């Protein structure tokens, strides 16, 4: 029996600071688009899972599973809410993958959502900071950007990564987002602007960092057998893997590699019976530009220490050998924390269907997404194939 899980519908709201919409409005929008795209009657959906990091702190609202099912008019189906910090979206995809694979659910709606702009910039950063070990990092003054700055500084020290290298993911991702109508920032940014932007935590600058974003993304997923009933262009999840690491960054042997990413990527590729060279397009978690550099190495596109060089050589641009973050990534598409992991899968599904328009990677057949929680304490990898 074929037992693959298919993605049959994708949807997103336009990401940005959506001052005129609340959490319900745009979550519903993303879910509706996914359902319309799938052509599935609402009555066929028998389960719903939503990824969200911190609606309780951002908007004083929890219990998002029930909220989403209620607003969507989906009746009394079971609704699950999952949290894994910035990897909440990836965790939602994986929960649905496991539920369908086990046979417990047949057709599921997967959502990821975050409303971040109802609090001020400082409070938004504080809320993100609880993804690290707050008692032993945050309480002593280590902000979330500061922790990524530790990685960046150490990467520069160990491998000679430069400030130019740190700016390259931003430049590339903004250029890609210029062709993504759902992205928060659709204008290119020249490298000198990135390198002169305000300092957050040396050597990391404002334009090395993903923005505060409101947004939601959605998928409709079902078993392979059922997929044929709804669509001619299903995209299959060939593998799903998730690994953990220490919550605090200072407890890791190395802070220039993310072990959870290395092992979850290896595990997922093995499960999919593929090698890295088979993958045509990637979404890698670039909450900070150093994150994309480290992940470029940890998934195996570049050797350890040569992530910056790979960017310099254009290997990860659209048209390069291993295009990364064709959507614009977290930096330019925007990073509504809980939505990001789902939005990555939306982008890759569009790429594999050939629906990515001006940012299309020619003939893309296989794709891989890495979604990170905290400073790498959670890593969730999905491998997709058309």
């Amino acid at each position, binding site marked *: 029996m074929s037992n693959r899980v298919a993605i049959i519908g994708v949807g997103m709201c336009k990401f940005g600071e959506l001052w005129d919409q609340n959490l319900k409005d745009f979550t519903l929008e993303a879910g509706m688009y996914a359902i319309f795209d799938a052509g599935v009657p609402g009555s066929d959906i028998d389960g719903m899972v939503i990824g969200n990091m911190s609606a309780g702190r951002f908007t004083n609202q929890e219990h998002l599973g029930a909220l989403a099912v209620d607003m969507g008019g989906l009746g009394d189906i079971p609704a699950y809410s999952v949290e894994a910090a910035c990897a909440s979206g990836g965790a939602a995809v994986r929960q649905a993958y496991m539920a369908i694979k086990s046979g417990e659910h047949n057709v599921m709606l997967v959502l990821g959502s975050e409303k971040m702009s109802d609090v001020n910039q400082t409070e938004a950063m504080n809320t993100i900071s609880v993804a690290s070990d707050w008692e032993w990092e945050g309480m002593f003054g280590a902000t979330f*950007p500061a922790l990524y700055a530790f990685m960046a500084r150490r990467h520069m020290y160990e491998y000679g990564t430069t400030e130019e290298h740190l700016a390259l993911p931003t430049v590339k991702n903004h250029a890609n987002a210029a062709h993504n109508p759902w992205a928060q920032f659709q204008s290119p940014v020249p490298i000198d602007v990135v390198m002169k932007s305000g300092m*957050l935590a040396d050597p990391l600058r404002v334009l090395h960092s993903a923005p505060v974003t409101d947004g939601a993304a959605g998928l409709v997923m079902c078993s392979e057998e059922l997929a044929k009933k709804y669509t001619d262009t299903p995209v299959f999840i060939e593998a799903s893997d998730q690994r953990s690491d220490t919550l605090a960054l200072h407890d890791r042997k190395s802070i220039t590699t993310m072990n959870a990413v290395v092992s979850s990527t290896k595990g997922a590729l093995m499960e999919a019976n593929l090698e890295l060279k088979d993958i045509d397009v990637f979404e890698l978690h670039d909450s900070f530009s150093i994150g994309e550099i480290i992940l470029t190495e940890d998934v195996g596109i570049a050797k350890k220490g040569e992530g910056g060089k790979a960017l310099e050589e254009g290997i990860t641009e659209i048209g390069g050998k291993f295009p990364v973050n064709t959507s614009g990534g977290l930096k330019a598409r925007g990073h509504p924390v809980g939505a990001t992991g789902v939005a990555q899968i939306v982008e890759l599904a569009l790429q594999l269907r050939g629906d990515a328009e001006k940012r299309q990677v020619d003939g893309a057949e296989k794709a891989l997404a890495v979604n990170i929680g905290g400073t790498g304490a959670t890593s969730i990898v999905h491998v997709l194939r058309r």
Partner: protein
Amino acid sequence: MAEQGVASVWRRIKAIYTIQGNMCETCGTYYFPPRPVCPECRRKGKLELYTFKGLGTIYSFTVVRQAPEDFKRQMPYVIAQIELDEGTRLTAQIVNVDIKDVKIGMRVRSCFRKIKEFGPGGIIAYGYKFEPTMKVTGHEEKPIPKGKSQ
């Protein structure tokens, strides 16, 4: 109910005031903050309390220029990962230093400082920060071999 922050700091005072962690007698690994279980040995582990000497080396660092409300008055401040001589790392501020002199590999020692206030009228938390060894003690700028007390 405790005032904001009181109980959460008070119950960790030993660790925060004296850098008390633990050491697994089975595998010889030092932990800070103290761990309830040795992740190397699990049920075979034997964790004993251990007070760190408070000497170490800067492993990585940054200068924070956008901080939460509780830290705004201290900006810009240096925060670092410090590798203690016992081999474990922790995260703390570096003080008594000119920002441009901070570098990876710099020898530092712990000092007792105010960490933050838990909002207006909240309690004041004290604990460890680190400062360059040279400035205070005249220690030579070279790492002390592991296992050797000074």
